């Protein structure tokens, strides 16, 4: 089997690359994973804290009230406008001219 001319260079490349890793590389990876897990659970804890849950509930209620109020206001405006149109038509028909 023919050995490619660059085969020795590949071994050197492998050694060069491996030398770029710090001696405690596996520990660094595992430490990083532990840190990010702790951060994620911290974020989860924050969002599941009773105060946070109360705040979401209050915000959701407020949002519901605002939406309901704006819908009712819009409906009332439509109704009033229709009534005014009717009054205006009746007034126009009573006009002696």
């Amino acid at each position, binding site marked *: 089997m023919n050995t*490619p*001319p*660059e085969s*020795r*260079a*590949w071994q*050197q*490349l*492998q050694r*060069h*690359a*491996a030398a*770029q*890793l*710090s001696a405690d*590389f*596996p*520990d*660094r*990876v*595992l430490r*990083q*994973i532990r840190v*990010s897990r702790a951060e994620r659970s911290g974020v989860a804890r924050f969002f599941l804290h009773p105060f946070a849950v109360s705040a979401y509930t209050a915000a959701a209620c407020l949002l519901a009230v605002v939406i309901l109020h704006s819908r009712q206001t819009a409906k009332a405006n439509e109704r009033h406008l229709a009534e005014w149109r009717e009054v205006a038509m009746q007034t126009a028909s009573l006009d002696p001219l």
Partner: protein
Amino acid sequence: MDNIEPTALLELVQQAQQGHEDAQRTLIVAYQNRIAGFIYSITGRSDSVEDLAQVVFIKMIRALPRLDQPAQFEAWLFRMARNACIDHLRRQRWQRLFSPLEQEEHAEIPEPPTTVDSEELDALRHALSKLKPKDRALIALAQEGRSQQEMADSFGISVVALKARLHRAREQLRQFYEHAS
């Protein structure tokens, strides 16, 4: 540690999937040099090796519980490494596009040879830098001894197309290498 027997590897992967940190550490130790070499052959930058290797192994540990076929661990790991390298190069290309002034400081500029490096290594590095990133990844996977079927699956092409592409990439590499050395 470089080679683990298939049965021992399977057991190790299963333990790592269950969250055993010792097994996870053993897997990292077993594959860190190969992954470093793989990353270096695709990116061509020494300063990217450790960061990208860290990204790959963090992804590996996070995704291990979702690996359905532990016997396919090695193929899966190298696919993950390949994707991380291609993403990294793509990100660099976008960064250069939006901040062209940084071009002189980063990326595509070949790494200067050090006094420690041999001419052969410099020539190989130069030859690799002349190839397209996907061809570099292909050659690096072949260098790692991955099967043609596995590489074809990884690149989403047929085995016939893969053979042709690999042959072309190897020829180009050889020409650039001989020209540089």
